């Protein structure tokens, strides 16, 4: 079944079964592998993308539920202030969780221009990093907020 949607500003039509998670449509059908598979249960945040500007976990979002909607992935952030701050502070170590971290951070800053530590904790605690980049993520969010 052909499902139309907008990904990173471009209209696309995908053919995966409607129950296929958005994550796997992005990665396997559209070749946008920046969005990562981490847990498959919305526990780690590695698969975070934006759906109409809101951060969602794409591993738990069936493609059939996002027809005609707007999806943004890490490939569509176009080097925003969050990405620039991530580079300036050399946030990533292994880097695997970082697209999800940056998608969450970008969504946070879109709704809260000047997040406090508590705001950052509340918004970012769904994104696991095993390398322990949390101090730099926090600093980079604050830097991006000021940029």
């Amino acid at each position: 079944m052909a499902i139309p949607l907008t990904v990173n500003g471009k209209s696309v039509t995908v053919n995966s079964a409607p129950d296929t998670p958005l994550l796997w449509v992005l990665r396997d059908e559209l070749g946008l592998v920046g969005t990562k598979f981490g847990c498959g249960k919305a526990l780690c945040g590695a698969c975070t993308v934006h759906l109409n500007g809101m951060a969602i976990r794409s591993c738990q979002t069936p493609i059939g539920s996002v027809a005609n909607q707007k999806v943004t992935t890490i490939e569509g952030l176009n080097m925003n202030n969050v990405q620039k701050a991530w580079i300036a502070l050399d946030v990533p170590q292994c880097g695997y969780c970082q697209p999800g971290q940056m998608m969450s951070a970008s969504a946070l800053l879109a709704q809260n221009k000047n997040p406090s530590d508590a705001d950052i904790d509340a918004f970012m605690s769904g994104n696991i990093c095993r390398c322990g980049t949390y101090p730099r993520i926090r600093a980079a969010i604050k830097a991006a907020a000021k940029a």
Partner: protein
Amino acid sequence: MNQINNQSRRDFIKASAAVGGGLTLGFYLPGKAGVAQADAGGGYAAPNAWVRITPDNQVTILVARSEMGQGVATSMPMLVAEELEVDINKIKVDFAPPAEVYINSLLGGQITGGSTSVRDAWEKLRKAGASARMMLVAAAAQDWGVDASTLKVANGVIKGPGGKQVTYGMIAPKAAQMEVPKDVPLKPVSAFKIVGNPKQQRLDTARKVKGEPTFGIDTRVPNMLYAAVVMSPYLGGKVKSYDDSRAKTMPGVKSVVQYSRGVAVVADSYWQAKKAKDLIEVDWDQGPNAGMGMVKLWNGLKEAAKQPGAVFRESGDADGAMSGAAKKVEATYQPPFLSHSPMEPQNTTAHVTADKAVIITPTQFQQLIPHVVGGATGLKPEQVEVHTTYLGGGFGRRVEVDYAIDAAEISKLAGGVPVKMVWSREDDMTHDSYRPAGLYTLSAALDGSGKMTAVRFHSTSPSISARLFPSIVKDGIDPFAVEGIDNFPYAVPNLKFTYVMHDTGVTPGYWRAVSHNLNAVALECFIDECAQAAGKDPIAYRLSMLDMDTSNKHKWSGLSAGVPVGGRMKNVLEMARDKSGWANKLPSGKGRGIAVMEGYNTVIAVVAEVSVSAGYDVTVDKVVAVVDAGPLVHPDQAKAQMESTINFGQSAVMFGEITVKNNAIEQNNFDMYRVVRMNEAPKALEIHWVKAADGQPPGGLGEPGTAVVQPAIANAIFAATGKRVRRLPLTPENIGAA
């Protein structure tokens, strides 16, 4: 490893034995790496195995260690570039294939682990850079008919008398024909421009920030299919029979194959493979561990602990001193199994045909893969081509090559098609090799002043090396099981340290900092208990007992400094005391704890400050680490490794526990295996560095912090609550029960 079929298991052990024994394996050298070459068909000239130069003056530096976050894809090129005299920010980085020339001299194989990358590379890669530069300069000198010493080099350009100049790219083909210099002098540390630059950024950040295809799981090859797998939930279990009738009818499914450790579905997409595999019904033979559970497992360890064990360090008469002691302290620590759980689940892309296998994989041990994949597929090692990708975390999990073997088998069984096998998080967490659980009993005799006059250490745990590198286990002692304790840092006249190797049925694996986070954790908690029994301040107590005799060598932990480092320990302890505000009183419900350790020739003291609620919920308010790791190649990423290891150790000691029920691992995702999240990370984290002494070699940083932070937190909880938690992790339940 009991899931690997017999043929590949034998190969693994054979290959491991050779590697572990420090011998080199007869692996092929693609493009004859290690030998200078003018053009290997890639359009480049290579003065040696680490440097390739194309005519457009693009310099590529080959990195022979796996990039798993620790920064080797930057630090290794920095070392080469320092002497090669090129702009580090303009080079390209490629990961090296398996080859003898790339063997890690501290580990005896092309392995990334043991916090050895920088230690091994420190001289070797600067010499590689210098040697290549000397050949380039010699070629230019010959062309111009001048003495090489009259030429100047900067940013990949050689300048000679009379305004002559030539780029590395232009002279490289000739340079690669020059004799490889025997005497390669190196710059003094004081002349470094790249190495040690505090402003140097990682070379891989931009691509990671843009979400470019980077990791093994991102691999795409033409006509690639996807595999999802069903593996035994039972430890050591095997497929008796299976019903794939429903799975086979699912859309996109190309084949269902039984391989050594399970059943795989091969399909057009991962999700199609995954949906189909969920419909496969398997009847399992539970194997030798049927009925295994934690009570039985701990009882097995307790029973084994009654054995005398193999003595790995002894001086004086510990038993005699113990019997006549004024005061005795005794404690048994019980750390659990832990999972590596890197964020990228295990995966491999394999294409196995009649005469060749191509393996694209996130691995820490590329050198072993041709051997084990060859064994599993009937190919010769030289017919197996290995490409190392970036790793989405490693932590020791990817020293294992099990998933590469699986993917190769599946590709072959599916008819020689290229297959990307991707494990689910559940597959990954329940088919890990686990940081061993164990029992660690320490006892000390104290004299009237509270000083330790005798220490007994008795550990009982599974041996990782007995499984992976049996040749390094000698006289009942696995060197990787006694590290972090055989380098006991205190001056105590009577010592007796013993180790009992005990298999539990749960596969043990090398896990970041390996046995430091068993032995040193137990020791540094125990020293705190002794300080309390002596009525002394924990830092003052440690300082008063440091072993300052630097001639006294310990025997087993080959990756450590090799001698007591009392002076360095004194330094980090005093700095930690001063930087942490140790003397300042904390309000009730809060506490500070100290721990110190030498591992990987790095000496670290950590002060942790915690708040503990009435219900024993712990908040880590602050961590102050003081680190003596010698000279830092990449200072900002050295700091990142300390941030990383502190986080990893905090996850382990506060939350980490893998358990077995009915012969199956109980935890299968991050809801059941909790790790530190943003809101739980230390509210403040300070890393302080000790300036390197002249000529001091670098220590390793990828692991030791993981171990040191754990007893610091446990000791802080004691300071806050008076509760001495010996059964880890430091959950409210375990604190309450202490």
